[in-house]
C-alpha cells in the first residue's frame, strides 16, 4: 500500500532538529519542549504506522514519483515498524531523562545536544525505513556523525574516545560502502527488493560473497560485535551521562537491524545458512561474544564500563538468536533486542542519575543509593534482574525464547552459551547488589536526596516497560510471528 507515512517518520525529528537551533538561538528554554513535542508526535505516528502494517500489510513510499527499483523506496513493514516504535518511544524517554543532566553537564551546549539528538533519531529512522542499500549508507553516516559529536561534546576524556569511535566507525562505513559497490557491480541494482530477486542468479559469484563479507564486517564494527568492539567500552564510559541512555539503547541496534535486513530479506534464510554459511560463523562469534563480554564485565570497577561490557555480551546474544535458523530463535532474538533497548536505557539512566545525584562512579560508590533513593534503586533492581533473566521481566522471556529456539535447532553450544553468559551476568549484578544493599552505609557519606522528577519519572516508565514487556510477551511474540518474520521460516 502506498502512503506518505514513512516520509513523515523521518521528517518529524529532522525538522525539529533544524528548528531547534533557529528558535533556540533567541531563547534556549524552547529547545527541550520542541524536542520532546516532536518525539511525542513521532511516537504516535510510529504506533499508527505499526497498527496499519498489522492490519493492512506493509506501507511504502516512493520519493519524487520515481517508481522502484529506479527511485528510492521507503517501507514500513512488521520489522521496521516495530523497530521504529522502539526507537521513538525509548528516545523520548531518554530525552526526558536527559533534561536535568544536560543543564548540569552541558549547560552551554543545550542547543547542539537537542538538535543533534533529533538528527540522530531521524537518521536511525531513515536507516530502519529505507529500502535502498546506498540510502542506508547515507543515513548510517549521518547517524554516526551525530553520535560521534554527542559522545565527544562534553570534552575531556570523552573527546579521545569519540575520536577513536570516529576512526573505527569510518572504517566500518567504508567497508559497508565497498560491499554495496560489489553488489552493484554484480547485479546493477541498489533496491533491496529488486536485489533479492536478482541475487539468486549470481549467488555463486565471488563478488557477491566478498561484498557480503565486507558489509557484515562493516556493520559488525558499527554494532560493536566482539571482537570488533574496540571503540565501545570507552565511548560508553566517557560519553556525557545525558547521552548514554540514547547511545546504548538504540545506536548499536540499528546497524544490527541493517544486518538482519540484508541477511534475511535480501539473501534469504537458506542462502545465508547453506550456500554462503555466514550464519554458522556468526553463531559461534555470538556465543563467544556473549560469554567473553559477560566475563570482562565482572572485572570492571567503573559502573558504566561494566554495563558497556554487558552490552557487548548482549550483542552476542542477539547474533546467536538470529543465527539459530528457526522461527522461535529469530523471534526470540528480536524480542530480546526490544527488551535490551529498554534495559540498557534504564541501566545507563540509573548510572547517569547516580553520578548526577551522588557522584557514584564505581560499583562500590553505588552504596550511596541506599539512602533516600527508592526510584533509582527500584529501577536498578528490576533492570538488573531483567539482564540476568529472572521472571517475569522482559529479559527472562527473551532468553527463554532464545533457549527454546536453540533447542529446536538442536544447537546445544548455543544453549550452553546463553546459560553460561546468564550465570556470569548474575555474578556481576549480584556482586553489585551486595555492594549496594548488603553493606552498611559509611557514616561519613553526604546526605543525598531523590533525583529530580524527570529522571524519576523516566526511570519509572522504563521499569514499568520492562515488566510490561515481560508480562505481555505473548502479545509481542504473536506480533513478531505474524508480521515481522522473513520468508523461509
Amino acid at each position, binding site marked *: 500500500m502506498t502512503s506518505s507515512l514513512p516520509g513523515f517518520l523521518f521528517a518529524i525529528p529532522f525538522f525539529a532538529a533544524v528548528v531547534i537551533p533557529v528558535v533556540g538561538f533567541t531563547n534556549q528554554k524552547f529547545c527541550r519542549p520542541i524536542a520532546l513535542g516532536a518525539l511525542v508526535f513521532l511516537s504516535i505516528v510510529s504506533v499508527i504506522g505499526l497498527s496499519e502494517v498489522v492490519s493492512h500489510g506493509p506501507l511504502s513510499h516512493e520519493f519524487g514519483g520515481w517508481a522502484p527499483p529506479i527511485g528510492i523506496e521507503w517501507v514500513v513493514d512488521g520489522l521496521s515498524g516495530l523497530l521504529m516504535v522502539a526507537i521513538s518511544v525509548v528516545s523520548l524517554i531518554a530525552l526526558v531523562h536527559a533534561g536535568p543532566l544536560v543543564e548540569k553537564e552541558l549547560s552551554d551546549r543545550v542547543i547542539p545536544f537537542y538538535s543533534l539528538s533529533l538528527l540522530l533519531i531521524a537518521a536511525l529512522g531513515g536507516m530502519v525505513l529505507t529500502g535502498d542499500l*546506498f540510502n542506508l*549508507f*547515507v543515513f548510517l*553516516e549521518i547517524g554516526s*556523525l551525530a553520535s*560521534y*559529536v554527542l559522545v*565527544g561534546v562534553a*570534552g*575531556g*576524556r570523552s*573527546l*579521545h574516545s*569519540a*575520536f577513536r569511535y*570516529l*576512526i573505527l566507525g*569510518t*572504517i566500518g*562505513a*567504508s567497508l559497508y*560502502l*565497498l560491499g554495496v*559497490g560489489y553488489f*552493484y*557491480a554484480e547485479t546493477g541494482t541498489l533496491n533491496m527488493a529488486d536485489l533479492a530477486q536478482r541475487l539468486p542468479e549470481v549467488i555463486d559469484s565471488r563478488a557477491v560473497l566478498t561484498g557480503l563479507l565486507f558489509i557484515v564486517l562493516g556493520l559488525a564494527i558499527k554494532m560493536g560485535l566482539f571482537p570488533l568492539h574496540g571503540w565501545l567500552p570507552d565511548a560508553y564510559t566517557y560519553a556525557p551521562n545525558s547521552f548514554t541512555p540514547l547511545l546504548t539503547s538504540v545506536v548499536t541496534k540499528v546497524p544490527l537491524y541493517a544486518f538482519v535486513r540484508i541477511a534475511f530479506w535480501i539473501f534469504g534464510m537458506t542462502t545465508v545458512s547453506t550456500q554462503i554459511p555466514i550464519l554458522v560463523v556468526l553463531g559461534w562469534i555470538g556465543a563467544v561474544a556473549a560469554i567473553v563480554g559477560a566475563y570482562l564485565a565482572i572485572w570492571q570497577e567503573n559502573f558504566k564500563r561494566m554495563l558497556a561490557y554487558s552490552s557487548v555480551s548482549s550483542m552476542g546474544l542477539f547474533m546467536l538468536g538470529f543465527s539459530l535458523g528457526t522461527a522461535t530463535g529469530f523471534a526470540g532474538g528480536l524480542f530480546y533486542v526490544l527488551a535490551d533497548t529498554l534495559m540498557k536505557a534504564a541501566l545507563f539512566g540509573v548510572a547517569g542519575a547516580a553520578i548526577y545525584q551522588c557522584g557514584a562512579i564505581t560499583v562500590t560508590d553505588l552504596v550511596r543509593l541506599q539512602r533516600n533513593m527508592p526510584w533509582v534503586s527500584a529501577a536498578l533492581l528490576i533492570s538488573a534482574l531483567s539482564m540476568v533473566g529472572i521472571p517475569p521481566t522482559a529479559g527472562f522471556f527473551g532468553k527463554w525464547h532464545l533457549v527454546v529456539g536453540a533447542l529446536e535447532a538442536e544447537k546445544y553450544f548455543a544453549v550452553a552459551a546463553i546459560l553460561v553468559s546468564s550465570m556470569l551476568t548474575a555474578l556481576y549484578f549480584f556482586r553489585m547488589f551486595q555492594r549496594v544493599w548488603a553493606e552498611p552505609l559509611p557514616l561519613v557519606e553526604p546526605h543525598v536526596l531523590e533525583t529530580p522528577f524527570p529522571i524519576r519519572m523516566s526511570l519509572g516508565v522504563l521499569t514499568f516497560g520492562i515488566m510490561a514487556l515481560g508480562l505481555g510477551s505473548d502479545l509481542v511474540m504473536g506480533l513478531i510471528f505474524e508480521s515481522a518474520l522473513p520468508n523461509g521460516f
Partner: protein
Amino acid sequence: MADILLYRPHFVAFIILFLLGIYIMVVNLNLVKKLIGMYLMQTSIILFFITLAVKRDGTIPILVSSATALPPEAYANPLPHVLMLTAIVVGVSTLGVSLAMVIALYRQYNTLEEDEILGKMK
C-alpha cells in the same frame, strides 16, 4: 594475477590505495596523519565506484537532443557518479567533524600524538 594487472589495472590501484589508507591510519600515532589515511581510504572507494561506470569510448551522460536517444553503451553509467557525489559529501563532513575534534583535543592536551594524549590522561 598478471591478467588483472594487464586488463584491470584500476582494481589493483584501488586495492593499493585502500590498503595504504588503512595502514597509515593504524600505524601512525599522529591524529592528523590518521585522518589523512582515513581520507585516502574513502577516496579509494570513490575511485572504485567511478571505474565501474567507465565504458570504452563512452561520452558524458547528457542527452543532446530528445529526438535521438543514445544507445546505453555510448555513454558512461551516471548512477555511480551520482552515488559518489553523495559519498564525497559524506566523506567531507566526516573529515570536518574529525578535524574539529582534533582541534579540541589539541587545545586540551597541547599535542597531536596519541600516545602523549593517553599519557596525559592518566
